[in-house]
């Protein structure tokens, strides 16, 4: 499993994850009211928190994404990103369980006018995609742990 912790792979995973988060943040930063609408549709948080969350969360995504791309505060950024991914997975899963078909608002905040069945399919796909990204974070953790172990044994 040495290849899994190889720096060649880790740096590419880190940059890819950073780019994904920057790409996800930009549409939300450009149009906060649409993102607020999508957060509201999840029906998980109190009304008073919808707007503050819609304003701040995309910037957290953007800054963490940029930090990963430029290799600054990598551990903190990937931990925050892992926490965000876990929150997204839980939020989408709860709504899937409720049968509440929503636009996930992950990469696009425009109302897509999809049918309920299309939205449900998209939500399942979004969970899979977020799980994939969590695996990317896990790879980064594993590589960092191996690097430390190698460093301390040297």
């Amino acid at each position, binding site marked *: 499993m040495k290849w899994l912790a190889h720096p060649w792979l880790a740096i590419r995973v880190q940059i890819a994850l950073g780019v994904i988060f920057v790409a996800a943040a930009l549409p939300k930063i450009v149009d906060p009211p649409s993102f607020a609408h999508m957060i509201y549709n999840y029906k998980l948080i109190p*009304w008073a928190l919808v707007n503050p969350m819609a304003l701040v969360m995309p910037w957290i995504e953007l800054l963490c994404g940029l930090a990963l791309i430029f290799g600054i505060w990598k551990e903190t950024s990937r*931990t925050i990103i892992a926490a965000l991914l876990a929150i997204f997975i839980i939020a989408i899963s709860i709504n899937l369980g409720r049968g509440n078909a929503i636009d996930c608002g992950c990469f696009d905040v425009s109302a897509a006018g999809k049918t309920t069945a299309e939205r449900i399919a998209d939500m399942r796909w979004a969970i899979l995609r977020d799980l994939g990204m969590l695996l990317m974070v896990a790879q980064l*953790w594993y590589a960092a742990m191996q690097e*430390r172990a190698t460093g301390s044994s040297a």
Partner: protein
Amino acid sequence: MAVSPSMNWRRFFLEAATLIAAAILCALVANAFASRERKLAVVSHGVAAGASPAAVQPRAAAPTPVTRVPLPPPTATTVNRPPATKKPTTDNRQPTTQFNPHPDKPYIEIHGDDVHDLHTKGVLFLDARRTSVYEQGHIPGARPFSVWESDVDEKVNKLYAERSDPKDQNLPIVIYCSGGDCEDSHMLAQKLWGIQFNNIYVYKDGFPDWQKRGLPIHTGANP
């Protein structure tokens, strides 16, 4: 949370706090410079509470929640009329006096025929969709009134100032959004009902239905 065992927790919290503080700062600055349609009220206003113009005592909490009102049987709150095909000679439709004020309910859901009827009578229409969508096409005469944009309270206050007379507050208002599971029109209705507007109708099937019926559409920023 699974953090690497050897991670320095103090450093982690310091960096995380810095990142979050920077995000908050960026968000506030970006929002301050955002255009009117893209600006968001930093503190979310409870739609059910109403806009609270200075001269108005907001109503107590609405008897029905902000969430979608399920369609009741054809008698109670939903005005159901026969299809428009029966229109020409045997007019089975009830007179418009049925659009009476209903202070006990925030809104009544109506459908296309009633909406068309009210539109021809010059009733005020409010478009609860985003302004950018409104500009692409809206019901002629409808005013842009997105509940998600920061100036919604300003618009509500202006409307209240125009219709401060109790008689005017009993005039019908039709609100619509995108139909389907769109709740924006219901939210706006709740907000207006909260400041004493007593005769609000929600066009349940919204703008897509209006389009489907081939009725006139106006584009641009003006009603």
